[in-house]
């Protein structure tokens, strides 16, 4: 049972490790990862420091190379794999079939984890990646119910990792082009969803407007919390009703499913949020560490501590959390 925390920079990485993460995951400073944001991520020198710090503490470090290689740009993806491998990381999180093949052929000794961006949601798909590229783990997309996760965890040829907490992607990851439809840039091609450079805020008589590449995503009255205009979490009009047609601004929180998922054989609980602050990572790591330790000590007596839930809700989008697709009624 691993607690896997995000780190967008060295301070966040250190806080994650110091506060109980069993492993951290990071990305390189270019478009080879799905959090390609200004001021975030690791160059070669920082990567080496990160590996040293994590290994000195007896923990693991994973590197996400989880966008899809561009024609004419293969060197960047190959370079990211080479750099991570040479720095001595413990696992590569990969989505692109070509990149997987490269990593498998050149660094068979380094674990390959199938990124959530590969959108592998069923047994035959996992079999494909296992048989062809000897993946050591699959990260499941956030589209499966808890029953489906349990079934997969029981039958999968490789261990299963799930998203435990953080921003909620409501589409099958790696198969969503909504962002490029509106802005020209998607997680698959540019490593970002609803990129900040397309966001505009305007104060109007009707309220504060949030736009993404000029499209109105939402409008807030003064007493409403205005969230980042991720395009699937705005309010739209369908047949005369204006509502969150796809999803509300909310975060995934699976803490209450912890025992069920552990018993089903899920090996790793991933916290989303490489783009979040070191303080955020610190609080999440602490809270999840406490919960996981409490479960380990007395699995039969595990109870949700209200303080954990309050802390997590405070760190959530719109201060709301959901079980997302794990809970069938959400679907």
């Amino acid at each position: 049972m691993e607690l896997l925390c995000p780190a967008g920079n060295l301070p966040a990485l250190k806080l994650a490790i110091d506060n109980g993460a069993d492993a951290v995951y990071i990305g390189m400073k270019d478009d080879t990862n799905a959090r390609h944001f200004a001021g975030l991520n690791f160059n070669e020198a920082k990567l080496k420091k990160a590996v040293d710090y994590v290994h000195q503490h007896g923990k693991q470090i994973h590197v996400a190379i989880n966008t899809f290689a561009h024609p004419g740009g293969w060197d960047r993806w190959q370079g990211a794999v080479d750099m991570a491998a040479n720095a001595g990381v413990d696992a590569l999180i990969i989505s692109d079939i070509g990149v997987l093949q490269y990593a498998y052929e050149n660094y068979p000794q380094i674990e390959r984890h199938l990124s959530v961006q590969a959108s592998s949601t069923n047994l035959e798909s996992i079999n494909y990646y296992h048989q062809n590229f000897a993946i050591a783990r699959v990260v499941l997309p956030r589209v499966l119910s808890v029953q489906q996760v349990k079934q997969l965890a029981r039958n999968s040829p490789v261990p299963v990792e799930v998203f435990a907490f953080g921003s909620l992607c409501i589409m099958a990851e790696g198969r969503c082009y909504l962002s490029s439809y509106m802005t020209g840039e998607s997680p698959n091609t540019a490593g970002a969803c609803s990129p900040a450079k397309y966001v505009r805020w305007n104060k109007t008589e009707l309220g504060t407007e949030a736009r993404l590449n000029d499209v109105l995503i939402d409008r807030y009255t003064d007493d409403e919390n205005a969230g980042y205009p991720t395009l699937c979490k705005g309010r739209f009009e369908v047949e005369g009703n204006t509502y969150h047609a796809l999803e509300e601004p909310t975060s995934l929180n699976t803490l209450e499913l912890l025992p069920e998922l552990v018993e089903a054989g899920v090996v790793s609980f991933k916290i989303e949020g490489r783009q979040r602050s070191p303080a955020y990572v610190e609080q999440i790591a602490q809270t999840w560490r406490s919960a996981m330790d409490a479960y380990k000590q007395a699995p039969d007596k595990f109870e949700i501590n209200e303080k954990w839930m309050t802390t997590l809700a405070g760190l959530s989008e719109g201060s709301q959390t959901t079980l997302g697709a794990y809970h069938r009624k959400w679907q």
Partner: protein
Amino acid sequence: MKFSLGPLLYFWPKDTVESFYSQAMDSDADIIYLGETVCSKRRELKPKDWIELAKRLTTSGKQVILSTMALLEAPAELMAMRQLVGNGKVIVEANDMAAVQLAQQHGINFVIGPAINCYNLATLKVLISQGMTRWVMPVELSGDWLRTLLQEATEAGIRDQFEVEVFAYGHLPLAYSARCFTARSENRPKDDCRYCCIKHPNGLKMNSREGEQVFLLNGIQTMSGYRYNLINDVQELERLGVDVLRLSPESLDTLALIEKFRQQLSSPHHYPLEKNVECNGYWHNIAGMSLAQ
């Protein structure tokens, strides 16, 4: 250049589907893709009905291909796909790697559909070695992307080992979710959807609060609000070496449109596209919903 009719993305009643395909047999399409790619709860035609329809359509002399689902979650959905892949007569368009896995087990060739993330030469090479004969480019990619990639394929000496197909007409399939957005619009979860997407044979409009038609809700699939249309780009597509252009069924009118697309090769005509109704941005390497005239 050949022209294909993509799989029907909407949920239509069985009679409508059958009458559509009986007319498609006499249409100008060279290739017909068949099957449910969006939601396994749509069972007006069951897998065995699609297989029968496919076998019937092959008598028309057109190439017929069975398209598989993009988002497979339940074991029952895998069972249905096994039926499609193992039909013994026509090849499949894989829209999930599970279909590639099964096709490999059967030792049969396959088409890589637009829902599979094949973005580059390294991936094309792997898939060709596994039996891919045709690649449908992901809808979000541009002419520039394709040009560079096909140059690389030529330099690598593999360009003659696969065909290239481009989605050229229709509302674009953009995303898949566990959630049914059509049922959500009626305040119901997917488990109690009552097959409500059948009431929306061309999707359900999802507009911005300023009335801009941003997306179409089509069950668990989100589609482009505007209709993608590359009719003015057919000659360029041919120059790039694209082998097949895909038209996605919107209505019976789509069948007549195939001829217009084909005419663009011999006697090109500039069709003014309708702003806020049509788009072609992806091909022109700008936001997908944009329109380059």
